[in-house]
């Protein structure tokens, strides 16, 4: 019973982080149809930004968080504006955009290593503590991470569903021709979703960095999990993507009930294969066929 409760607690924490990553990848992927694996570079840059601000420059952690989010948004927007937009304008295929994205992912991580060196970078200073709920434990940082992740997803959800610009994003995502017809500048919306999606990844990267460390290839695994979350949950809505990320985190943790830790990953990939093949629309079908 205790084990179950503890797994639930950890599942929520992990699930919230993966949900944030999935939602961030979803926003970019669903709106612009870009298989943006270079998201991993954005993530790592955000981690290093926190290091530069909070450690190298010795400023506060809050500024570090700010720097993470801003730098991630800037990198994401830059990749879209400098790379993807001209490619789209030239009618590049999905495959060549994906390969260009791979190129950025590979070159970006290597460039970070050349700049900051291969060693991990620590950003200490968060006053962490363990919280006890009976026998179940979580740390303050885990709670904060999960809370911020959930709050961010919720805010982005509100933004997308309640604001004029958010509605324009939905418009571009579901009906680009009509969006153009009503005068929504599609390319600007594209830069915008790259900015927001990247900022979300930047937040996740900040929390990983202050929880543990930053290193050049730190973005690869989180982005992979984000991608998996999106396809697991369904690309039709942000709720589907977030649900997919959450299910993924939960699955990884919960496999501990009956599987050794090293087999949890295998389970995840097996589930993913089944979903992709037999239910390609994802676990959550989108409403109204969008």
């Amino acid at each position, binding site marked *: 019973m205790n084990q179950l409760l503890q797994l639930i607690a950890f599942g929520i924490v992990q699930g919230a982080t993966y949900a944030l990553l999935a939602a961030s990848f979803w926003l970019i992927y669903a709106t612009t149809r870009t298989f943006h694996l270079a998201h991993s570079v954005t993530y790592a840059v955000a981690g290093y930004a926190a290091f530069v601000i909070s450690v190298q420059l010795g400023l506060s952690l809050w500024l570090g968080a700010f720097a993470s989010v801003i730098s991630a948004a800037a990198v994401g927007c830059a990749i879209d504006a400098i790379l993807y937009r001209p*490619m789209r304008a030239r009618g590049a295929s999905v495959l060549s955009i*994906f390969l260009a994205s791979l190129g950025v992912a*590979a070159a970006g991580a*290597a*460039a970070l290593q050349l700049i900051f060196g291969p060693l991990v970078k620590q950003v200490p200073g968060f006053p962490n503590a363990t919280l006890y709920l009976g026998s179940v434990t979580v740390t303050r940082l885990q709670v904060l991470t999960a809370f911020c992740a959930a709050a961010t997803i919720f805010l982005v959800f509100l933004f997308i569903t309640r604001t004029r610009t958010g509605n324009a994003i939905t418009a571009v995502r579901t009906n680009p021709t009509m969006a153009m017809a009503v005068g929504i500048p599609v390319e600007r919306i594209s830069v915008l979703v790259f900015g927001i999606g990247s900022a979300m990844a930047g937040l996740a990267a900040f929390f990983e960095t202050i929880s543990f460390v930053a290193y050049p290839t730190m973005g690869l695994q989180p982005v992979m999990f984000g991608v*998996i979350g999106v396809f697991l949950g369904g690309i039709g809505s942000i709720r589907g993507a977030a649900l997919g990320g959450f299910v993924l985190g939960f699955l990884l943790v919960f496999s501990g009930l009956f599987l050794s830790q090293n087999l949890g*990953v295998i389970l995840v990939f097996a589930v993913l294969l089944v979903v*992709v*093949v037999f239910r390609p629309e994802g676990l959550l079908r989108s409403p109204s066929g969008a």
Partner: protein
Amino acid sequence: MGGSYIADLANQITFLVALAVSLNLLLGFAGQMSMATAAFYGLGAYTCAIMTAQGMTLTGAAVIGPGWPFLGGLASAIVVSFVGGLVVAAPAARRVRGDYLILLTLAFHFLVVTIASSWVGLTGGPNGIVVPPIGFFGYEINTTDQAFWFLLAWAAFVSLVCWWIGRSPFGRLLRGIREDEIAIQALGKRTIAPKSLAFAMTAAMAGATGAISAAYMQFVAPTTYSLDLAILVAACVALGGPGNILGSVVAAIVIGALRPILENVPSLSSDSAVPWQTVIYGSILVAGMVFRPRGLLPEGLIAMRRFPREAISAVPRVVQATLLKTVGERDQPALAKSSVPNPMIASPIVRVRNLSKSFGGLQAVKDVSFDLHPGEIVALIGPNGAGKSTIFNLMTGAIRPDQGEVTLHGQSLAGADPCAVARSGMARYFQHVRILPGLSALNNVAIGVPRQAGENLAMTFLAPMRVARGEAEVRAEALRQLENVGIAPHANRTAQDLAFGQQKLVAFARLLATGAQVLLLDEPTSGVDPQAADQIIALVRTLAQSGKSICIVEHSLHVVSELADRILFMNAGAIMAEGTVEAITTRPDLVDLYFGT
């Protein structure tokens, strides 16, 4: 294994060449993205290692191996990775494509690597397995210099095989599938088997290369088979030019040589050579995709050289007067309509009986019946949404009717898919041409020729002479059909470089090459200039005169009036009237249906 460093470098590059070339078969020719290259490379390496060195045990009892000779290990690696390729292809060949295929192969990659590092009993876990060296019948290869010739031969062999497949009719089929799978099915060709085979061949070649590299390195460990390797190989294919084997070879050599060159640059420390290599090839990949998306050596480069691009006028210069004249022509009595005595007497070749189909609540087709006779041109007309295209889709098996059936030569087509329908002699011409843009005009037509021996991959290797003879006939036939439609001079030009009207003619030639008796033409003249339209109209007439049955859907009424022996007027899914052009166009009720009230 001893031997010189230079030979070793060359050997490492041969592995990269073999992997890039084999991936090109899948990515370049069949158009299927795979991130599973490293996974299959590793699958082969581990299979070889297990058969030769580790052995497989289940619940303590030895199942198979160890102690197999190198060649046994190699053979088992080929078999295992071939089967593995088929397993991955099973979902990939049917419905998974695009982004899903990328994800699927990525997931497969991680699955393989995770299993390799956690199933310690089988794979040695992260520690890997020490593998005996490459050896044949007691002769062992022990230095890099000795291995070089063998590995060079292997890379050359893989390149030759891929090149041979690429230029064979099977390769043409793959490229056709890459360009437009639906068009290929509509020509009566199966597409799932060739795609699966391409996957499995690529996997088998990567697996065999993995087995050889394992024996060459005399070691396997999971970290060797990383995603970075998969990216590197994909980069080689993309940069060299998908569909161009030579391009992959060149790109693999260049990119493979990058690291050793950088390592020997004195100003770089040994710990920055690797990131610099990654930065450089990553940037080349990005730049390549932006500025030269078809690669350094694009597919069909040589053909393009031989036939330099002619200036094709962007917009055909046809003055309005000509157009107005064609309008006027309509008033003259219709000229050479097809001249089969009386179509009603000859027995129908196609019978459509009581076809019905609804989508959701919408009844798209209601109880439609009609016949097609040899030598007859029948036009389906009606306002938008009348159900004309749905009838074509039902006739060709693209969608299944709720009720009713279609018979061809007296045989029911119930349950047949577009491929089977095309094989039994009813072929479709698509409104949007569905040309294969990356193939030459000749190959576009040649792919339509049915029952080619060379489309069977095994025949390509087992009976090369027969395939070569067959291919000569196919090309002759294709050329003949191109001559028929009057564009033989453009035979070797890439289809996408032709004017749209010429593309339509190529599509016609392809349709004729199938030898189909019944032709379903969906807007054969849409989108072309009047000259080309006239050419097509004349062509369709000739075809009908030669005894083919033709059914057209056409919105341009003047085309209909020039061609059709009989018109079926459709509205709201049902046939409202049937008759000659004159009979239909003079009925006021049909005028109201067509032009509104």
